């Protein structure tokens, strides 16, 4: 087992534990935005997709790189934008609405 693999494994296991710890306490109110937010985070595969695009040099690898980069970019931008849209709607207080004539 190489040193690189050992250190990668260490990082992986610790990150899994952090993930369990951070998410365990979130109220169900926020589960939908949270699912969407974590969904955006795995768009980090874009980093990997960019790296394979940087060494592509034949038709097959160009095609693979194109699809991988496009998919990952869609995952990242869409994921963050839609999560932000959802969370932007959560308000503590109602903004003043023009509602008159209902009080007796």
């Amino acid at each position, binding site marked *: 087992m190489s040193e690189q693999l050992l250190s990668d494994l260490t*990082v*992986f296991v610790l990150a899994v534990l952090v993930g369990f710890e951070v998410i365990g306490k979130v109220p169900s109110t926020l589960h939908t935005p949270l699912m*969407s937010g974590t969904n955006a985070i795995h*768009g980090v595969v874009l980093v990997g997709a960019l790296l394979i695009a940087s060494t*592509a040099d034949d038709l097959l690898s160009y095609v693979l790189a194109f699809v991988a980069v496009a998919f990952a970019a869609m995952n990242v931008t869409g994921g963050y934008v839609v999560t932000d849209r*959802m969370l932007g709607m959560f*308000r503590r207080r109602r903004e003043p609405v023009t509602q008159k004539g*209902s009080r007796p």
Partner: protein
Amino acid sequence: MSDFDAGVRLVHLAAAVCFVVGLHLMGSPTTARRGNLLSAAGMAAAVLATLAVVVHEGTITRTGTVVLVSALLVGGAAGLVTARRVQMTAMPQLVSLFNAVGGGAAALVALDDFLRLSDGAGVPTRTGVAATLDVGIGGLTFAGSLVATGKLQGVVTGRPVVFPGARLVNALLIAVAVAAGVVVVADGSVPLLLVLLAVGLVLGVTLVLPIGGADMPVVISLLNACTGTVVAMAGFVLENPVLIIAGALVGASGAILTLLMARAMNRPIRNIVLGGFGGGGGAAVPASSSGLPVREVTADDVAMQLAYAEKVLIVPGYGLAAAQAQHEVGELADLLEARGVDVAYAIHPVAGRMPGHMNVLLAEADVPYPQLKEMDEVNPEFSRADVALVVGANDVTNPAARRPGTAISGMPILDVDQARSVIVLKRSMGHGYADIENELYTDPRTGMFFTDAKSGLAALVASVKTLVG
């Protein structure tokens, strides 16, 4: 390691910190938005640093640059447009769609790296293992998430699709995948890796098709966890820590979310994954099949009762989400509040089409979140409520859950039957997801208002205005 490489690694580390802190901030509604922005900032930094690497290395060909830039633009635009345009009710399928492309991207990254290594120096075992898992599970996640999207969107039937021998076929497919995986790891065979990819894709379809539409949120969460793991595997293949950290985070949080959801729905994960439960659409049953009488009420009756109540608890459910009636319910609550009625929403953990989905829908209708009460917080309040107004919720209000021996026994429910009176707004006596009679409906204190959520609530708003406005 050069200074440049070290700098890039540090930026990637900072990005990982942003992801963790961002997720932590997303645990509370007051800080959630900031948390998501922090996470997005980390992502932007990681991607920019990687682009700097691409430029710095200088190995990218001219065609490669065109491919990279055009793919970024196409993918980014597709993500942006769908995210901006999507209706809040369609949120679950969008999450699933983004999940599909993420899983697909990870599988392709691993595939590409594997092809390159097998051309040259040969594939080291560690890369082989990671790439095999990545391609197999990545394919499964991609196809499975697409099927889930289709089911929620109504393109694929929401009913469980079960054919005889399906489990045997799946078991065989899994056996083939495992065998192919072992050979790929042992001697770096490219054709068998492609076989593995194909089997993964097929399995994605055959595993998700038999699962009913209402279980889809749990499936999406599970697939989300799979994608996280797949991305971490891609990190192992590319020896890239930020992929490993982010992937592991998502894998772990997805697993926790899946468990929390399954618990709230009172459905063991195993049952969900094996499938075959739940009609999705739900057949309409015209009358109470137990033969007990139900009391039917009109919009005016309900409006009068609501307008003169002191405390009203609204229980929104799947029916409200499906009818997109969140604005109407918000308007009714505003109207009642303006008359001095104490109004709050009782939110079951799985109300809507996905846990937490109802909160998003009501937030869209400008309902302030302190008015949305979670089950444990609101249950003691039912006994003090004059009216519990149930809009399109069914199984989560059924008192039968407190007794052993029913399909929903043990499921946590809202104590709607403790309220002084109950109004149920519903299209018919049709059964809920668990397909059993709701005893609440035949309770003498319950009035049934048979209507579609959207037009029913609009009628209530109009009645309150004309009767007492």
